[in-house]
Structures are given as structure tokens and as C-alpha cells.
């Protein structure tokens, strides 16, 4: 990896520049994209470089998602910006009953090359309707692929694969991560969907994470070193398809698992992951699989309340100590 350090927003913008230059059928539609060049600066430069291919729509989520499906069915490669992931609730029929199912219902007559781009996550004091992490709903919707990258380099490689993929991809990026910096190769590259990354090697415990929880695990791993616990961090990156091989390989080595995500605990993706692991790797597990996640409440506004609800590094550390009995 080259050592150029850029922000997550810049990594996304660069990838989109490459894809839009490479393929005329790629366009971006959403609300209030042009003036801000993306509310998180994630589309910097695109409106000027690709005029007419990044479009401000009326506040009409059903119609916007519909522009995605209908144009994907007729030769385009739309990227639909959901503005905040919370607003998928305003077009769930279009996403889950139409986009996800139309290829299957038609007996494979069509492809639906479409990216639903959803900035998600809490921490901005934006309260209950602007802070959700909803990836679990879509993992439970056959016909959708679900990608939740963490580091800038992952974002670049994964968004490019998502744009080129011929199936609908839900692409979640945490709002708090846009400003985060990291090394990103300057040359174009793809990271295939369905490939997890072992981002830290260790023998004592496997930390399974994605999106923002990767950074929690990374910090926790440092703390754990002082307790003589070496963690292996597996960043899933894609939830469906899930890279179970990489997950299993790590667990066969460590025999201990902690799953971390920001979505609230109950019904979150951690449950699915835990269920698969205990089923397929039952005899390898030396301790119960622990999950670290947000509290089962809507995200409250007041900083002290919100912080209390979100998973913290100390929670990860505590969970690891529990499964390693240290």
C-alpha cells in the first residue's frame, strides 16, 4: 500500500471520480448533493467534473429510489444517496419489495446494477431519527448485498466494486468516519465484495467488526496488549455476502470471539454471526461468543445519554476479558 494519507470522504470521491470517468452510465441522485458536494464533502469535485450526472432531487424518497431501480433496469448504473440511512424507512417498499426482488421474480430476466449509499451511525447528537445503523434489516432481505466499510482504503476499493456489481448493493458509511484519514493507494484498485480483511493478527481472541466498530476494536487491541492479550481483528467489510472462510480460519486459531457493532444489540447482525459461528465451529469455541453493541433504545439527544448508549472501547476490552477469562 502506498502511504498517501487522505480522508474517507476524499477516498470515496476519488473512487467515484474514477468510476464516473470510466463508465458513462454511472450517475448519482439524491437530495442536496450539488451545492455542498455531498453533506459530508463526499462528492467533492463531482458536480463540476460531471455536470448533469449528480442530481438534486425533490424530497421524494420513493421516487428517488424508483429512479434507481427504473434506470438500473434500463441501462444505467445509478448511485442513490439516501441522505441519512434513517430515511430508507421512506422507501422500504422500493428497496425491499422491488429492487431486491425484481430480478428473482422475473426469473433472472434483468440485472439491477444499483448502489444505495447510506450514511449511518450515531455520535453527532442528531438524536433518534438521524443516528440509526440499520444494516441488519437488509441482511435479512434476500436479493441485496450489504457492504459496511471502515477505513478509507476499504471505501475506495469497495465502492468501485459496488458500482460495477450487477446487483443492488446497500453501502453504509458511518457519518463519524468521513473525516478520518488513512493510507489510500493512488492507483485504481478493486476490493471484491464478500472479502473480509484480517487487520491485526493475534492468537488469543478474534474481534469481528465492520464500519465504525473496526476503530473500537483497533483501540481495544492496544489496551489488551498490556493485559498480554493478542487480538486478531477481522474487519468483515461485507456482511452479505459474508466471508465465512476468513472468519472461521481466525476462530479455529483463537477459539474465542467478540463481535462488535454500533447497531443496537437485539436483532443486530451480531446475532446472525454468532449463530453461524456456534453452529459451524462449536467444537472450536472455548468460551461463549460475546457481543458488544448499542443499547436497545433509540439514540437520545443529550451527549451524556448518547455516549452511554453507544459501544465503547472499554466495553470491547471487558468482553474480551470475559471470553479469555482474564
Amino acid at each position, binding site marked *: 500500500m502506498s502511504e498517501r494519507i487522505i480522508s474517507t470522504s476524499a477516498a470515496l470521491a476519488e473512487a467515484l471520480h474514477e468510476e464516473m470517468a470510466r463508465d458513462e452510465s454511472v450517475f448519482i441522485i439524491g437530495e442536496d448533493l450539488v451545492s455542498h458536494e455531498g453533506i459530508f464533502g463526499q462528492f467533492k469535485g463531482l458536480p463540476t467534473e460531471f455536470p448533469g450526472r449528480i442530481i438534486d432531487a425533490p424530497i421524494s424518497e420513493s421516487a428517488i*429510489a424508483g*429512479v434507481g431501480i*427504473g434506470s438500473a433496469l434500463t441501462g444505467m448504473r445509478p448511485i442513490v444517496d439516501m441522505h441519512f440511512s434513517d430515511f430508507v424507512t421512506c422507501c422500504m417498499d422500493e428497496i425491499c419489495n422491488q429492487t431486491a426482488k425484481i430480478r428473482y421474480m422475473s426469473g433472472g430476466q434483468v440485472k439491477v446494477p444499483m448502489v444505495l449509499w447510506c450514511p449511518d451511525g450515531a455520535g453527532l447528537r442528531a438524536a433518534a431519527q438521524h443516528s440509526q445503523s440499520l444494516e441488519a434489516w437488509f441482511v435479512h432481505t*434476500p436479493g441485496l448485498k450489504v457492504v459496511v466499510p471502515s477505513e478509507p482504503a476499504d471505501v475506495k476499493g469497495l465502492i468501485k466494486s459496488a458500482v460495477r*456489481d450487477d446487483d443492488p448493493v446497500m453501502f453504509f458509511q458511518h457519518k463519524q468516519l468521513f473525516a478520518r484519514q488513512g493510507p489510500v493507494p493512488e492507483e485504481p484498485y*478493486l476490493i471484491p465484495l464478500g472479502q473480509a480483511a484480517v487487520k491485526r493478527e493475534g492468537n488469543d481472541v478474534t474481534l469481528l467488526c465492520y464500519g465504525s466498530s473496526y476503530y473500537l476494536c483497533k483501540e481495544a487491541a492496544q489496551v489488551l496488549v498490556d493485559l498480554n492479550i493478542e487480538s486478531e481483528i477481522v474487519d468483515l467489510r461485507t456482511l452479505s455476502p459474508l466471508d465465512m472462510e476468513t472468519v472461521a480460519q481466525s476462530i479455529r486459531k483463537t477459539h474465542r470471539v467478540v463481535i462488535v457493532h454500533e447497531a443496537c444489540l437485539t436483532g443486530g447482525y451480531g446475532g446472525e454471526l454468532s449463530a453461524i459461528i456456534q453452529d459451524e465451529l462449536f467444537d472450536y469455541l472455548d468460551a461463549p461468543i460475546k457481543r458488544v453493541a448499542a443499547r436497545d433504545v433509540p439514540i437520545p439527544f443529550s451527549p451524556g445519554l448518547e455516549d452511554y448508549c453507544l459501544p465503547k472501547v472499554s466495553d470491547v476490552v471487558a468482553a474480551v476479558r470475559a471470553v479469555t477469562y482474564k
Partner: protein
Amino acid sequence: MAEDARKLLELFQCMVTIRQFETMAQEYFAAGEIPGFIHLSIGQEASSVGVCSCLRPDDYVTTTHRGHGHMIAKGADLKKMVAELLGKKTGFCKGKGGSMHIADFSIGILGANGVVAGGLPITAGAGFSIKMRKTDQVAVCFFGDGASNRGPVHEVMNMASVWKLPIIFVVENNQWASTTPQTSTGSVQDLSIRAAGYNMPGVLVDGNDLLAVRNAAMEAIDRARKGEGPTFIENKTYRIRGHFEGDPQKYRTKAEVGKWQKKNDPIDLFSKYLIKNKKSDKSSLDKIRKDVEAELGDAVAFAKDSPFPEPKEALEDLFANSYKGGSPS
């Protein structure tokens, strides 16, 4: 507009084909040979044929749960249609869709829909893509009076108008949404009034008058092709059959249905027109009916002889790119 006789007989044949197809479907459903639910458009053929006969093969159509007529009028293969209704491997959707999800993308049918008004957002996308690709195609979406009460209709009409998308909105106001009369759930009786709220032309048409529908459609399609934006056409018609086959229909009287059936059958009206205006005669029209019967007979035979899909084929057709790391470079 004066249509030549050959064209008029084509239109007649198309309406007859739809009628016979659905009459067949009605019988096969009653006989238990069609699983699930079917919704018939008997009595509404003039709307399907009037609009779709003005379209090119490369134009798009989104249809509804009551979409057999739209499919046939756009030129769908009867064999694959019957086969799909029977759940056969040779059907348009390999048996995965059935009547409610039948589609033929090769002729621009972007799908029937099990969700009321579900087709409208898809049409917005088709219209948008036409605009992006700078072709002169158009996109038509059919929907019902009941569907007109759903939010996506509003969003799509507004968007289509703002961006002058080449879309023709065709509401088939058959005066009933399942068990509820249009007037009990719609705040206006003529839905086309709403066009003004979107700054687009609204046209109220006798939906059982084939040529009236055709004229309205041609004008709207012409506007759309010229890049002048969407039009809202309201075809006033009537649903002769129950909402779904097997519907007890406690909500309306036989008399109400009978009135429409006797006085207002679009096929009767058009055959009378053809004969009155010497465009054809009874025997030629009967001959057409016979030919259609024969063709439909072949389609049914084909479908019945076709195999059901293998159970495990249920796992196919979900993704276009192999589920594992599916990213073509």
C-alpha cells in the same frame, strides 16, 4: 384521426385476444389449474390496447396486479404468459413470478406489480434513464383509481413534471378498488383534475372507447417524445369481474355490473363501430375470433405440456454476479 382498416382490425384482434386469454384464465383458475391469485381486466381492454398500440417495442410499460391486458397489448408471447400463470418452467419468469409479477423486459414491460402503485417509482427511473440516454423512448405507467391514493404517485408525478420526463400516467379508473368505490376513498371523482397540481396536462377519456383512448395516448406520447414532459390520462372504465377470481363481491349489485356489461362492453362497442363504418363485417370479425381461439389453444397446449421447474431452481436467479466476491473488473 383516420385509421386504415387493417390497423383497426389489428386493434380489434388484440382486444379479443386479451378477452379470450382472461376468459381462459378465469376457467383454468376455477378448475384449480392456476395457483395463487389472479386479477382480470375483462371490460378494460380498450385501455390496454388503446394505449399500448401507440407504443414502439422499445418503449417501456409498468403494469399492475391486473396486467394481463397490458402485456398482451404490448406484444407478449401468449405461450410464455399461459405457462407463467400455470407456474411452468417455460413461463416468462420460469414460474417464479406468476400473474402478479409477470414481466417481459424484451418488449419493455418492466413488470406487473403486487404492490399497488409499485410501478410508478420504477417508471420514474425508466423516464429518467431515457432522458439521460437522450433517446426518444417513452415510459407508460398504468395504475388504478385505488392506487392513485398512494404517496408514491404524488412523488413521481411531481418529479416527472419538474424534470419533464417522457412519462404517460394512465390511471384506469374502473371505479372500484377491491371492495371500496372510488368515490368513498378518493377526494375527487375525476382523478385527472390532479394534473393541474403538477402543472401537466390532464385528459379525461371514456376508457371503453378504444379510439378515444388511442387519440389521447398518441397526443401524450407525441408530447413526451418531443421532450415536452408527462401527461396524465384518466381512462374511465369498469371492472366486470370480481377484484380477484373468487371475490364474493358483496360490495356491489349484479345489476350495476350488468349495466356496464350490456351497454358498455369495449369490444362490442368497437365491433359495432367497425361494422357501422364499413371497416369490416360480422363474418370477418368472427373469423378473427376463431383465429385468436386457435392461437390461444396452441398457447394453452404448450403451457400444459411444459414441465414445472425443478424445486432446486428456486435457488437460482437471485444474483447476477456470483454470490462470492461478485465484482467483474
